[in-house]
């Protein structure tokens, strides 16, 4: 089982997929005129990246989340080819993108987590969304750890100027 479907009363955890999470984007800032800063609110499917132990032990009041995209929609928009999704993205060969398979029972399509679109949101907000049935699924172990490893590697990798040459 790749996904579980926790009840709305279950606590928040790493790997939770939650719909309609409000994410703020700064839209307008003009310090010269003194107009107030304006922000746009986008409602996104997100997944929680913060470690389980930090959430369970209440060491944090906020969670790091990443945006989750419907892979088919990205293909339809011409952003990706279907073969990209089936090939390198699914194989975990693209830094910062993590593939999640579809689950017809849970009504989840194939998805791509963008590990470069990160936000910090209050845990209470995620709890409220969960209580309102916005939590769609929870990525199970060991897939959750696999995602966490890819997330860590994306930011800890060391690039070489060019690949080593061979004979």
């Amino acid at each position, binding site marked *: 089982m790749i996904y579980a479907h926790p009840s709305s009363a279950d606590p928040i955890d790493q790997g939770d997929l939650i719909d309609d999470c409000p*994410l703020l*984007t*700064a*839209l307008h800032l003009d310090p010269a005129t003194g107009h*107030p*800063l*304006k*922000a*746009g*609110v*986008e*409602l*996104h499917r997100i997944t929680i990246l913060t470690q389980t132990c930090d959430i369970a032990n209440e*060491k*944090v*009041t*906020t969670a790091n989340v990443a*945006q989750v*995209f419907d892979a088919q929609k*990205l293909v339809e*928009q011409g*952003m*990706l080819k279907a073969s990209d999704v089936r090939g*390198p993205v699914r194989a975990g*060969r*693209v*830094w*910062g*993108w993590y593939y999640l398979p579809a689950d017809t029972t849970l009504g989840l399509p194939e998805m*791509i987590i*963008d590990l*470069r*679109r990160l936000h910090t949101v209050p845990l209470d907000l995620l709890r409220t969304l969960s209580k309102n049935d916005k939590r769609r699924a929870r990525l199970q172990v060991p897939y959750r750890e696999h995602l966490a490893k890819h997330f860590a590697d994306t930011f800890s*990798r060391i690039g070489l100027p060019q*690949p080593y040459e061979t004979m």
Partner: protein
Amino acid sequence: MECAQWKWYNLWKEEKSQMNGLLCEALAELNLEPGQTQRVRVNGYDVEIRRLKEESMDFANSVMLEPWVTFPEGAISAVVPIHVAEPTLPDPPELPDDGLETT
């Protein structure tokens, strides 16, 4: 001075080398394709000769890639004026109680 055993060994080695050369020449004439086999009966037992498939090191398909597009922004559902508030403090870190803190 070479002993008889050493002479015999060198002779055997030379013969073996010649034999290998002949065998290689004969096998080369078979022009086997990768994975193709030939069977031959020698001294009452079957010998199978098979050309191994070349293992391709597909380097290009094993390296990690950088993302080549930026996923689209979502539709803004609302625009809200923001009032600058006091910066929130970080969650307090858990400090180890190992007595190593400076006084």
